[in-house]
């Protein structure tokens, strides 16, 4: 795993020292809120509905056990004993007190973590495939590139005041688990005709109020050209991006208004200009970084314990849903669900974080990942250790066998925490999960992604949910709009609005009708919800959602 060099260390420590003084000056009155707000946001400190919130970056979603343990410690010492993992591979602490924040940042710095650039119009935490370095389908581990981008973008003088926030996602696999097509820049590793690895570069994806799928601006970018090319995109955006209108400021709008061909031309022109200025220093750095991401020393041992354990149905069910094929046959990737039925998606208590840290250290080559789907991953577990890992997870309430199923819901904090929310999202997620658990239909339904946002900003990725739910305020009451057919993978699509929204107490029954309609109409269990939707279109689902109207039409 990558370790800070002296420069990183000094930079983060200096920032903590600066911010400590800024907090002190705010508290003693020498800074006004107008002066302080941009400073606190630069350090990931928001003010939400009921309290401050500190957003901490987990670069490309990778953590070691010491870091996870420290997050547990922070939750316990300065918050209410838990943390919330988000779709952007961050963790948010919901209850810090202003005067404690410097101590929290200092505790983070002790384990090479920080909250820098988790807010503001800069390059945000670079996100990556959570199975990176372990996935069987991977061309290359994308994390060294993500780390290179992190170092380059952190405090980059030219890119601290972009027209708007800027999000980069990267994957090393053809199966896109990083939602690269819904990011400002999406990097998908591909091979060229000669078998060399490089990137397909997508620009202009994004969710929020004008959701768009990214467009390819370069079919194949040699890995050595990554930094100058990304820099070229950013500098074109920095020039053209609209600063006059916040809602038109993202690069997706720039691309839309300028046209892909013109953007491509400008980027290539700028790239040709700056490419010669990169003399290979970045490549030397990349080599060092690569060494830090060398695969762990995989063990060679029999895997009988795992095979034997499968006679127990609960273990078997968990293995079916929560394990993914590892590149090493003796190993498995374990996804730990933070979606126990009825619990808050993405939340882990400090005690659970400690258990996860401990499992990573004992059985996982000291690695953990946070997925954009708000789960935790142990990327390298030898199969012989799986029964023990399962038992420990079960004891900690972390063995829910639902990854990829209807209760594995992404939900943003919504109006339970977020100051921008127009409705709640967490209780809707809790109620859907509980309802389908009661119906005992979850495993029959099979793969189905429900994603919920509490406002148009779409932090919960609802546009790319097979079923998306958007919470709105309609004349002073919570109202939920459904979108269908969204997809966040390599075949990304923005979902289609199904029709008028539903009141808070109607939304769960509406989802139930929808899912029952799918079960009714599917060709067989192997036809997923998304596949059925693609075959059948909106009509039968609409009829299930709005039965009264159907009856009226018939009358």
């Amino acid at each position: 795993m990558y370790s800070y060099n002296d420069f990183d260390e000094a930079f983060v420590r200096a920032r903590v020292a600066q911010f400590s003084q800024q907090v002190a000056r705010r508290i003693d009155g020498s800074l006004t809120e107008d002066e302080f707000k941009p400073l606190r946001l630069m350090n990931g400190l928001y003010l939400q509905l009921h309290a401050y919130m500190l957003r901490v970056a987990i670069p490309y979603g990778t953590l070691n056990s010491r870091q996870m343990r420290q997050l547990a410690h922070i939750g316990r010492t300065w918050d209410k004993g838990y943390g919330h993992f988000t779709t952007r591979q961050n963790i948010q602490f919901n209850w810090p007190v202003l005067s404690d924040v410097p101590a929290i940042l200092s505790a983070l710095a002790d384990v090479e973590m920080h909250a820098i650039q988790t807010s503001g119009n800069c390059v945000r935490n670079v996100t990556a495939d959570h199975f990176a370095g372990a996935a069987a389908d991977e061309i290359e581990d994308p994390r060294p590139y993500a780390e290179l981008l992190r170092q380059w973008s952190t405090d980059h003088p030219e890119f601290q005041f972009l027209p708007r926030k800027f999000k980069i996602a990267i994957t090393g696999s053809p199966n896109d688990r990083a939602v690269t097509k819904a990011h400002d820049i999406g990097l998908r590793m591909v091979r060229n005709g000669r078998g060399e690895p490089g990137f397909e570069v997508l620009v202009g994806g994004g969710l929020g109020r004008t959701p768009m799928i990214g467009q390819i601006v370069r079919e194949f970018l040699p890995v050595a050209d990554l930094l100058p090319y990304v820099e070229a995109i950013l500098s074109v955006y920095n020039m053209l991006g609209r600063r006059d209108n916040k809602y038109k400021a993202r690069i997706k709008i720039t691309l839309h208004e300028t046209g892909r061909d013109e953007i491509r031309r400008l980027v290539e022109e700028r790239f040709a200009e700056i490419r010669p200025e990169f003399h290979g220093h970045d490549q030397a750095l990349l080599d060092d970084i690569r060494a830090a991401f060398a695969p762990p020393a995989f063990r060679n041992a029999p895997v009988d314990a795992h095979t034997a354990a499968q006679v127990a149905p609960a273990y078997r069910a968990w293995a079916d849903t929560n394990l993914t094929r590892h590149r090493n046959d003796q190993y498995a990737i374990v996804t730990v669900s933070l979606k126990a039925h009825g619990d808050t998606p993405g939340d882990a208590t400090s005690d659970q974080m400690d258990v996860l840290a401990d499992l990573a250290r004992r059985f996982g080559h000291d690695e953990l990942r946070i997925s954009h789907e708000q789960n935790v991953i142990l990327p390298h577990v030898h199969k012989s250790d799986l029964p023990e890992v399962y038992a420990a997870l079960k004891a900690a309430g972390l063995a829910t066998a639902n990854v990829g199923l209807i209760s594995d819901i992404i939900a943003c904090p919504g109006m339970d925490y977020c100051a921008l929310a127009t409705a709640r999202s967490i209780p809707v997620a809790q109620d859907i999960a509980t309802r389908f658990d009661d119906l005992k239909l979850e495993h029959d339904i099979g793969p189905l992604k429900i994603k919920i946002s509490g406002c148009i900003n779409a932090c919960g990725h609802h546009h790319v949910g097979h079923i998306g739910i958007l919470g709105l305020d309609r004349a002073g009451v919570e109202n939920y709009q459904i979108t269908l057919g969204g997809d966040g993978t390599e075949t990304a699509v923005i979902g289609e609005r199904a029709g008028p929204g539903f009141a808070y107490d109607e939304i769960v029954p509406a989802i139930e009708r929808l899912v029952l309609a799918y079960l009714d109409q599917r060709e067989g269990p192997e036809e997923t919800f998304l596949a059925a939707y693609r075959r059948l279109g909106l009509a039968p689902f609409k009829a299930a959602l709005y039965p009264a109207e159907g009856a009226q039409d018939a009358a």
Partner: protein
Amino acid sequence: MSRKFSPKVVTANDLLVGDVVYFTAADQWTRNHTEAELIEDEAHAQIRLLDASAQRNVIVGAYLADARAGDHGPEPVHFREVFRTRGPSNYAMGKQVGERPGPRS
């Protein structure tokens, strides 16, 4: 005829802790919505908002929120403000259990 003014309270977040607070008739901040000053007049509301905002080392982000008279004092009207009087719905945390932000003591 101009539209009838709907009564307001001044609300904000406490600077140090982040807690939701309400402005009283005595220029104090309370955590209890029912103790807030219910403002029935538009011009007065603007003045009270200025008074409240002047306490910039005590609170953050003061604004006027709709309220109405209830049996025990002013009550919130909009669901967002109802949530702000209590805390989140997923955990028994915040004011609904008499807690402030920060670690549990």
